[in-house]
Each structure stands twice: as structure tokens, then as C-alpha cells.
């Protein structure tokens, strides 16, 4: 499916949901659940909180079905809600309550395992260390820069769409990204 067709399909499905066809909500949820949760996970760095926030995102989408108008891209609307919730969660300081570190042990007492295809134990450890460094470097970014980088890198959004999500101009997005990548280059320089 091409990008344009996918966008039209999203709007079409949401319009069907608006008309009372509740079954059309499932394909929308299936298509966007992953990207939204992954974005939220990288924003708040906690899988359980990310899923909780994603539940709220999709509940809000469903609740607003009666007033939905396809004036903007569905994903822009979706990520605007997701970003708003994530930024609020971070600003409310809820982070302190639910943060789990990759270094922490699980309730079962075993070290937290992260999927890795490498057979070499040393490489596994090295990758884990690198991943934690990346996670910390992203976490250290100011919230808006973090959101802009995650949408740009992982969602492959264009500047105009990121601008629409964050409610700022395209030039402001370019500036956010420039500063964010500059910080990341400095913080991760030792990994080279």
C-alpha cells in the first residue's frame, strides 16, 4: 500500500467509525498501535507506562469519533495526542514513580533480558551498554527535542508533520532537530 493510499485508508476507516461502524476501529488500532507505543516507550522509557498512555491515546481517538473531520493526517492527530500525553506525564513528574531501569532486576530476581541475536556474550554485554547509553542520551534531551528526534528518526515524519504535531513552525522543528542531533553527537561521540 502506498503512503497516500494508507493515509486515505486511515481517514476512510475513521469516518466509518464516526458513522457507527465500530469494527473499522480495529484495523486502525492494529496499524497504529505499534508505532504509538514505541514512540511513547522511547519518550517515557517505561513499557508499562507507554502502554497505559497508548490506551489513553486510542480511547481519546475513539471518544472523539463523533467530531472527527479529516482535515489533517490521521497520524498527525494521533501523534499530537500521544505527544501531549507524554509531555504531560514527564512534566507531572510521574516519571519518578514508574521508572524502571534496564540495570534493575526483574521481580523474579533475574537480570532484565533484552532480545539480542548475537551469540557472543561479550557482544551482548557491549550492545546492552551501548543501548543504555543511547537511552540515557535521548532521555537527557529537552522534551520537545526528544519528541522531534523520535518522530524524525523512528516514525520518519517530515518536518511539516512534526511541526503540526508539536504546534510550531517548520523552521522551529529544523532548529529543534539541529540542536538535538548536536547534543546526541556530543554525548555519543565516545561510541564511535
Amino acid at each position, binding site marked *: 500500500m502506498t503512503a497516500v493510499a494508507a493515509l486515505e485508508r486511515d481517514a476512510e476507516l475513521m469516518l466509518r467509525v464516526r458513522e457507527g461502524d465500530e469494527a473499522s476501529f480495529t484495523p486502525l488500532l492494529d496499524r497504529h498501535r505499534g508505532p504509538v*507505543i514505541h514512540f511513547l516507550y522511547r519518550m517515557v522509557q517505561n513499557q508499562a507506562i507507554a502502554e497505559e498512555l497508548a*490506551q489513553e491515546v486510542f480511547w481519546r481517538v475513539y471518544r472523539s469519533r463523533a467530531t472527527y473531520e479529516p482535515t489533517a493526517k490521521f497520524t498527525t492527530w494521533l501523534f499530537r495526542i500521544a505527544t501531549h500525553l507524554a509531555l504531560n506525564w514527564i512534566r507531572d513528574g510521574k516519571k519518578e514513580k514508574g521508572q524502571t531501569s534496564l540495570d534493575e532486576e526483574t521481580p523474579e530476581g533475574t537480570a532484565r533480558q533484552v532480545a539480542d541475536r548475537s551469540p557472543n556474550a561479550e557482544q551482548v554485554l557491549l550492545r546492552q551498554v551501548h543501548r543504555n547509553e543511547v537511552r540515557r542520551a535521548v532521555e537527557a534531551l529537552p522534551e520537545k527535542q526528544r519528541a522531534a528526534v523520535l518522530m524524525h528518526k523512528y516514525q520518519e515524519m517530515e518536518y511539516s508533520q512534526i511541526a503540526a504535531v508539536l504546534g510550531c513552525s517548520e523552521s522551529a522543528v529544523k532548529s529543534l532537530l539541529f540542536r538535538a542531533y548536536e547534543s546526541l553527537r556530543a554525548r555519543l561521540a565516545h561510541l564511535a
Partner: protein
Amino acid sequence: MSEQPIRASQGRKDKALRCPIQSGDNAEILLAYVDRKLDPETAAVLDRHVEGCMGCRQLLASQRMVWEALDSWEAESVSTDFNRRLYRRIENEEGRWWRRLLEPAFPWSMKPAMPVAAACLVLVAAFLFRTPGGWESGLAGRQEVVDVEQVELTLEDLEMLRQLGVDLDSRNPATL
């Protein structure tokens, strides 16, 4: 960083561009270059520029490193019961009787009306407390209790005077 001009193809074929770092275009052009999103013509021009520009070469190398580091950060898998939890929530929320009653009349969210409602409540409470029948009537009731006590004390005083043999009936009450 070199002064060697480069030419880009994105609608600017006739315009010579300076080094992306010097011109301030690095955020856009260099990011697109690293992400292989530049059109082949512009990428080829930039390739040639980078060969002779140490600054751009270093920036691209470190940006590539950041890109690869971010690629290594995989997201965790989503819970298998995510949809089920959401549908249960929808069912619970949609099933609430007050929502069913109110939503056809007020399809918009009631949340913004909450501060206004709270302010109205405070005003009504303030109005009630300031009316004579409200807060002040409570004070009046308290005053009456004090008066009854005083009457009782006066009666006790009169009884004591009677016991002392004072003829109260022949005296002017005003002189007591």
C-alpha cells in the same frame, strides 16, 4: 570546511550553494544525506563536496554514528492483551448511564466546564453565607442562648433577695 561551492537539485539547480555547515543547511541536507533521502543528483554533488571538506566529513561521520546508535535501540514488544484491555475500557466508559444520557445532548467534553462549575459553586456558597438567613442566623441563635442564661441569673438574684426579706412587690422595679 571548504569554500568549494556545491549545487543542489531540489528546485535550486541554478543556485550555487556553499558548504552546508557554513550555510546553516546542515540540519536538513546532511540529515537527509545520512538517511539516504536526498535525490541522487544532490547526493552526488554532496559526495563530491564532502571529499574535499573535512568539516562536513567529520559531521557526517558523527551523525552516521548517532543514526546507527539510535537504530540499535529497539522497542519492546507490545502486550498481547493490549486490544482487549482497550475494548474493555471502551465498553466500561461507553456503558456509563450518565454518559449515555448526556452525550446526545452534549457531544463535546464536559471537562472545560468544570472550572466554571466550581467557580459558580463557590459564588453560590458565598452568597448563602452572607444572607441574613444563612450564616448570620446561626449567630443570632447563639445570642438567644446567652439571653436565657442572663434571665435565669436575674431570677436567681430575685429569689435570693426574697430570702433576705426584701419586699420586692412594693418597690419600683426600676430601682432594683
